[in-house]
């Protein structure tokens, strides 16, 4: 792996963001609107729900963390879609870039895009709704890492689909996280789900991450087993997604789709 090639791909997306104010606005706009919306919902539930009584901000904290996951995954997908939309896709694959360098560059760039979007929203949550993610304590770092890895993992699965099936897979890019959201138990405990769905939900790291958020904010208890379970599952899914991405790349070379992917 060569750093200069990873940096080149990062630079391509940095120039894109730097040169377009509407693009920066777009990155910030949706997370901010989400936080404001969930801020008011959270406030309502805090005042009227027995479960959430006196625990201001659980829903909003979950909403911010979910948005962090959503932005990381979408950012990863968007970086790849940008290449397809701009018909630059083939240029990347005739450049001396290794697949691993593409993955690393997109992962790093997606983090920057995610932070541009989510940091203003996090900063707004405190003065407007009195909610701070830092209430989660040092565990916050591990939770964010877990969410980011899972976001990138989902991104890799979607991008593999784009490589394998072409731009027609684009709609899945937008809907992938909505499919997992009900099973992720973001705003409610896993016990709400029917037994058979609980079995399925427990295979997702999201369940452990958001159980942990509730455990810390509701009971002030840090349950490291949740964090470890999430990290182990994340590691497994990340490896699987990297394997799927390499397979999709080799399959695309066999099918000859790398030469004419475009809108």
């Amino acid at each position, binding site marked *: 792996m060569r750093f200069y090639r990873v940096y080149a791909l990062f630079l*391509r997306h940095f120039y894109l963001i730097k040169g377009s104010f509407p693009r920066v606005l777009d990155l910030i706009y949706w997370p901010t609107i989400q936080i404001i919306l969930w801020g008011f919902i959270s406030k309502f539930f805090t005042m009227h729900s027995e479960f959430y009584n006196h625990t201001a901000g659980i829903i909003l904290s979950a909403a911010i963390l979910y948005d962090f996951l959503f932005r990381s995954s979408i950012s990863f997908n968007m970086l790849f879609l940008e290449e397809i939309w701009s018909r630059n896709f*083939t240029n990347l694959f005739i450049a001396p870039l290794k697949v691993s360098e593409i993955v690393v560059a997109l992962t790093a760039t997606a983090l920057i895009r995610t932070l541009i979007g989510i940091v203003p929203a996090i900063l707004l949550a405190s003065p407007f709704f009195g909610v701070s993610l830092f209430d989660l304590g040092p565990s916050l770092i591990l939770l964010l890492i877990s969410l980011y890895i899972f976001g990138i993992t989902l991104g890799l699965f979607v991008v593999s689909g784009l490589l394998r099936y072409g731009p027609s897979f684009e709609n899945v890019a937008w809907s992938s996280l909505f499919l997992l959201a009900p099973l992720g138990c973001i705003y409610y405990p896993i016990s709400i789900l029917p037994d058979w769905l609980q079995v399925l939900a427990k295979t997702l790291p999201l369940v452990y991450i958001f159980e942990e958020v509730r455990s810390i904010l509701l009971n002030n208890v840090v349950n490291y087993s949740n964090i470890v379970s999430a990290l182990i599952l994340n590691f497994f899914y990340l490896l699987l997604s990297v394997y799927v991405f390499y397979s999709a790349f080799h399959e695309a070379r066999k099918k000859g789709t790398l030469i004419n992917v475009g809108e």
Partner: protein
Amino acid sequence: MEEVIIEINNLSKKYKDTLAVKSINFKIQKGQTIGLLGPNGCGKSTTIGMLLGLIKPTSGNVLINGKDMENHRTNLLQKMNFISPYIELPKRLTIEENLKVYGRMYGVKNLVNKVNETMEMLNLIKFKNKKTGELSSGQKNRVSLAKAFINDPEILLLDEPTASLDPDVADYVRTIIENFSSKNEKTILIASHNMNEVERLCDEVMMMKNGEIVDKGKSLDLIKKHGRKNLEDFFLKIVRGQNEIL
């Protein structure tokens, strides 16, 4: 002894039931400019795709400087570049930004000088801060060429390099390609439907039909061999075969 830079051995590509390229063989010497001719769907793009490592051959191999493309893809691509009218550079980036990005990707030394030198060569300096998407077709074509020259490639693959350009700009582009080839002893493979362009730029041509190379040689020799007036006539004879319409 002349140095072989591209060697294709029994190269085939099968897509499901279609054999797009049928066991082709050829060698290209260093410094040669070769034209790859043939009707649409004859296997030119698939051949170029395999040369670039974008398409995995079903059988056979591509050797660049004696090294197999399948096993040395990243290293070999460092010395190659490609342009096609079907591929564009990011539209929202300026010319200079695009060249800096690709220069870094190819590990170009003294990048700032190289970018300026390339822009000067293609008369792009005055547009350097303009977004690529805002340029005319001719200017975009020159930017694509600049991107193709940025790593000073030993092998340049050009797919329809002057498609959709007016005769003036097309002539300018051909002159640049000629200069690039002659001054630096570069190897160029051009897939084109413009026979005048091929006659002007290429030392030899290879004619493809139905996935096979049906004839190859110097333009004048092929014209003479087939009893034709010019290269276009030769092309029509090969493509139409027995059903030739005159």
